[in-house]
């Protein structure tokens, strides 16, 4: 019985360690919130160099790559595509840049913005989607009366009756089979919203890893094998339905490569990215009439590449700054907490036990905690043999283990009995 009780006592200590490792660091960082710096990277067609908008809670700074600082009014003309409306208002929009005439409508059309966050990549929505009519002849997209799923076949479920629309399901399933689709679908990517200028349907990865483009045109199925290599190991596709009609989607692979599926026969164009990890970093692609700026945002810095419109690298830049780890609070946290458990993280939409270990500095608190634990057992005259397992818990978990030890504390019951 006593042996089981000792095991349960260790178990209770471990549960307290878990609770402490979640809540103590959380409280600590609530009281020592680190200020966030933000840097937006752009490429100036005037300077032919990177320019930055840096912001903290006090002020916004406008700078170029050479370290010159600008006022807002001086800075805006350096990015005439981004600020074309303001420059039109003040009469400062240039008539041409590098001999190319600047027409507001064209500038607006070519300004694109894409953002891919790690949480979006890891998020798995409900696997039913509306298939919009892509060529309705109407100005706005309309929500269809049914939703589709692709399991052993492509099925349409009528929303009102919650029943399968057999006729439509058979029509689309046959079209997919004809194109060589292998059921079930491994992944379906699209933008199930009516708030987009037009519809390009969905990109669906079949059971063999082939990527198909599926949409509905005048009530009939449009299914096409895109020919995208099956060994690409795609982790996410972000559809990019904008009026420019330059690309269907952004493709992110397991190897942290980024591609664009072009409108030209689904040709893949590799997007140059520096130090990108899709599980951790946010990817931003900003485009204008001349350039594409691809930025990978890290927790404490960024890497940017500027390319021409064919994604050929022109220049790259990057910066990193010290994060919370070098602040006083960061040093204390690193010494005090050997590890931290978060149940929610920015990089994922799911709740789990995400463990982050500290570095060698945690040895400080681990050793001090162990000394306290040994003193505790010595004072209670508990033999080392009996205290060893509890000391081991404290040695491995530091301050959390010590809290658990002081909470459990009834180690000397045998003497009291």
């Amino acid at each position, binding site marked *: *019985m006593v042996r*089981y*009780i000792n095991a*349960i*006592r260790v*178990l*209770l200590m*471990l*549960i*307290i360690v*878990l*609770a402490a490792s*979640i*809540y103590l660091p959380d409280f600590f960082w609530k009281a020592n919130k680190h200020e966030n710096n933000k840097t937006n990277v752009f490429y100036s067609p005037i300077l032919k160099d990177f320019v930055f908008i840096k912001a903290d809670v006090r002020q916004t700074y406008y700078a170029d790559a050479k370290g010159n600082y600008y006022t807002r009014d001086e800075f805006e003309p350096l990015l005439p595509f981004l600020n074309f409306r303001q420059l039109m208002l003040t009469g400062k929009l240039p008539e041409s840049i590098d001999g190319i005439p600047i027409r507001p409508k064209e500038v607006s059309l070519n300004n694109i913005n894409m953002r891919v966050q790690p949480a979006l990549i890891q998020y798995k*929505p*409900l*696997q*039913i989607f*509306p298939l919009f009519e892509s060529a309705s002849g109407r100005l706005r997209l309309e*929500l*269809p*009366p*049914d*939703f589709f*799923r692709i399991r052993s076949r492509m099925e349409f*479920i009528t*929303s*009102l009756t*919650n029943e399968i629309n057999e006729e439509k399901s058979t029509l689309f399933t046959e079209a997919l089979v004809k194109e060589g689709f292998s059921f079930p679908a491994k992944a379906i990517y699209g933008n*199930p*919203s009516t708030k987009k200028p037009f519809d390009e349907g969905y990109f669906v990865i079949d059971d063999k890893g082939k990527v198909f483009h599926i949409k509905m045109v005048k009530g009939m199925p449009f299914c096409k094998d895109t020919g995208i290599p099956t060994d690409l190991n795609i982790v996410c596709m972000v559809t990019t339905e904008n009026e420019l009609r330059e690309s269907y989607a952004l493709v992110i692979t397991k190897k942290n490569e980024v591609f664009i599926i072009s409108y030209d026969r689904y040709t893949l164009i590799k997007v140059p990215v520096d130090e990108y990890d899709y599980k951790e970093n946010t990817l931003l692609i900003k485009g204008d009439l001349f350039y594409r700026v691809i930025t990978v945002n890290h927790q404490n810095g960024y890497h940017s590449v500027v390319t021409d419109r064919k994604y050929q690298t022109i220049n790259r830049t990057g910066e990193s700054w010290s994060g919370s780890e070098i602040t006083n609070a960061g040093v204390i946290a690193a010494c005090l907490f050997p590890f931290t458990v978060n*149940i*929610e993280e920015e990089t994922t*939409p*799911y*709740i*789990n*036990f995400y463990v982050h270990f500290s570095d060698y500095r945690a040895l400080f608190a681990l050793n001090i905690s162990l000394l306290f634990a040994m003193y505790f057992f010595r004072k209670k005259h508990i033999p080392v043999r009996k205290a060893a397992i509890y000391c081991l818990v404290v040695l491995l978990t530091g301050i959390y283990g010590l809290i658990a030890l002081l*909470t459990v*504390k*009834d180690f000397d*019951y045998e003497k*009291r*009995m």
Partner: protein
Amino acid sequence: MIKALVMKEWLKVRWVFIGLVVLHGAALLVTYYDLLNTFKIYKANEVIIQFITFEVVFYSKVKYVSLLTGLGIGIFQFFPELNQSRLKLTLHLPVKENKLIFQMAATGAALLIVLSVFDVCILSLITLKFLPREFFDSMVTTTLPWYLGSLCSYFWVMIVFIEPGWVKRILMAIVGIGIVSLFFEGGGYAMYAPSLLYIGVLTFLSGAIIFLSAFNFKRGIW
């Protein structure tokens, strides 16, 4: 003896259990009528796209009712034991204390499982009546942590009540609140999908701590 003990536990909590059945029934009925009325006011496809886009948990009432159930059964089962010092007598019966405690915990846990199964069955009927099967799948994954949380909260109430010392009781209550809170975070569909196994293990391990509290209680360790 065992049969008599189960009967004793049932007699203690029967009215609470019946009250909780009514509460669960009412929560499910409100959920049903809310959904029915939503489908009467808005077009079905608009409702479904809103549910998909914003991950509307239309059965969220079950979350709070589940937590209340775990706490309620725990309190009503163990408060009389402590208040009238019955547990001391029970633990001196000619049956192993672990067996007795297991019997008590199992009775409460069984009642919680019955209520959870009742919820799942009724929610399944409601979900499958109005919505595609995918919503049913996600409903099961979304509500499972709540039922486990209900069980876990019951175990921690039991631990807190059985602990003989007030200081330890307060400390256990703090730990219990921290652990039980882990089951009720987030607001979307199937947010616990990657961690269901871990929280299942955490529930099971929390149940084991009851034996330590009983051990402390019988020996007056505090």
